[in-house]
């Protein structure tokens, strides 16, 4: 195992989650230490959100099923907790910024009410103090005129403003672990930088651990200590961020890095990876990337490679570099 952290705050070991007989997430292991930011990247549909939701036990069970593996948050065995225990932990110990801001805000409550409710649930403070804290949070995520913004409803905000309200909610109770699923996709670069800088400051100040799911490799390279790359439900590569960008080893990672718009001349066709991620239940034998890979050798089509190498781990028979 590539356990490089002395006592990780979050430790996922050999997690497999399935719907019926198809595995959605397979044999996933991830560790994040206090104060560390881990980036999780990979193509749409590869299982990033399912992994994220599994940590907070927010997957709909059924149809989703935890088949094997463990998830530990500090001393807590997340898979053994009751719904009541989970409710106490969510928001307080582990908070999540969801990929879908509109569906996760309550349309009939003002954003002030929603923030205050979150704070009052976990903190013994007066209504007045909760309001002050709520306004401070909105201010920190860059919502103009935070005080008056408290009275607004989700539909009165722009897409990016809603996303920032979600971020404020997640940060409201200083969680030990923040799971951020595409937290800045609706945000322009300046606000994105402001939000990511805020998360970055918080993890350095408070030792909050961060799991950052994003498709923006530029963001990963600037903010994350380590990166895990997912493909077809499995981790296929994991390394320190600088190392991964300098020396991608898995052929999928290599192809992914080549597709970034900013590294291609404007107006040209982008070097897209042809084909699509195989859907769960329909993953090919061997390495599941092999049908789209340009460097296939003999074992790739028949035998699943193991995730090997410390500290730079990859799951590839014929790695680059």
């Amino acid at each position, binding site marked *: 195992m590539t356990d490089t952290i002395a006592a990780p705050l979050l430790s996922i070991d050999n997690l497999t989650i399935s719907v019926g007989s198809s595995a959605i997430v397979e044999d996933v292991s991830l560790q994040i230490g206090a104060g560390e930011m881990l980036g999780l990247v*990979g*193509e*749409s*549909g590869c299982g*990033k*959100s399912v992994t994220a939701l599994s940590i907070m036990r927010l997957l709909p069970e059924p149809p989703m099923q935890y088949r094997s593996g463990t998830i530990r948050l500090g001393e807590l065995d997340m898979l053994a907790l009751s719904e009541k225990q989970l409710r106490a932990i969510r928001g307080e110990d582990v908070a999540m910024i969801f*990929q*879908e801001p*509109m*569906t996760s805000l309550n349309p009939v409550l003002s954003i002030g009410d929603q923030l205050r409710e979150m704070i009052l649930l976990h903190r013994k403070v007066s209504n007045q103090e909760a309001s002050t804290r709520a306004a401070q949070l909105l201010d920190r995520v*860059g919502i*103009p*005129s935070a005080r*008056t*913004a408290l*009275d607004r409803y989700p539909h*009165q905000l*722009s*897409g*990016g*403003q809603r996303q*920032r309200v979600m971020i404020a909610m997640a940060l409201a109770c200083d969680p030990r672990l923040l799971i951020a699923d*595409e937290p800045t*996709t*609706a*945000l*322009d*670069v*300046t*606000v*994105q*930088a*402001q939000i990511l*800088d805020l998360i970055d400051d918080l993890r350095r100040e408070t030792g909050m651990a961060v799991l950052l799911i994003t*498709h*923006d*490799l*530029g*963001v990963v*390279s*600037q*903010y994350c200590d380590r990166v895990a790359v997912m493909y077809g439900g499995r981790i296929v590569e994991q390394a320190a961020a600088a190392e991964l*960008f300098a020396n991608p080893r898995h052929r999928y990672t290599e*192809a*992914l*890095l080549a*597709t*970034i*718009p*900013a*590294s*291609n001349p*404007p*107006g040209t*066709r*982008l*070097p*897209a*990876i042809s084909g*699509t991620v195989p859907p769960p239940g329909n993953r090919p034998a061997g390495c599941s990337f092999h049908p789209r890979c340009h460097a296939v050798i003999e074992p790739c089509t028949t035998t699943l490679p193991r995730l090997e190498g410390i500290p730079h781990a990859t799951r590839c028979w014929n790695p680059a570099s």
Partner: protein
Amino acid sequence: MTLLEIENLSKTYPGAHGTTVKAVSEVSLSVEAGEVLGIVGESGCGKSTLGRALLRLIEPSGGDIRFEGKSIAGLSRRQLKPFRRDMQIIFQDPFGALNPRHKVGAIISEPLKVHKIGNTASRAARIAELLALVGLPEGSAERYPHEFSGGQRQRIAIARALALEPKLLVADEAVSALDVSIQSQIINLIAELQEKLALSIIFISHDLSVIRHVSDRIAVMYLGRIVEIGPSEDVMETPAHPYTQALLSAIPRPNVPRAERVVLKGELPDPANPPLGCAFHTRCPSAMPHCTTERPALVARKIAACAKPATTACHLYEVA
């Protein structure tokens, strides 16, 4: 040929405590047939409002909209219907936009039904075609939206918008939620369709590297107004407005250290209470005394960096 022209389009919303939110103010622009116009600007600057108002999905508070030369600003809902077919939008929040109780096939073919196009068999064929076009697996038509990942749902929304082969597509953050490899597939797809169908696209994004990649021209918005507009390479290579310059320097790129970017200080002012003069003066590194009192007009101005004039709303390039 000019497909769409808007003139002095404005949209206000009632704000908190009796104030008025000026989300879009006096925007004029045009889109040629087959052209991609990119719109960029900070969160909350009015991009989605502009995109929706020009399609009359929300009612503009003022100004005119002409589609193929005909004014559509005053048309009733019924009169508007034939135009609807030619003007589609991909919404920023596709998750909210997909009916969770409908199967994907029904969602994609809904516009065909509304406009009474084809029969059951031809619609089924069209659904299969559209699914393939956006790279969703066969059989997706029989599944429900919640069975798909975020990026897959975005592609469902794109397939639906393309079902009617519109002449104008407003793509509001259409690829922002997609990972880079799917993003590049969708960008290529949009470029292909745009060539094949001579589709005009208003491409709204906060991501300048994406905007630059797809757009023929780029409009930069700040607090409800356009502050710079021009051919992509001009705006990107020789940005005139200090706001455009700041936006460009903030693009995160792999292998560029974070220390080298210029992050804009301060926040976007409240559109219920916009600053006098140039709205950007509160954050502008080059602000001059009269920037705080006089609003600069959006006109062609000679800038030192470039032989061609730039269309920008900035006092820096005032002829003395």
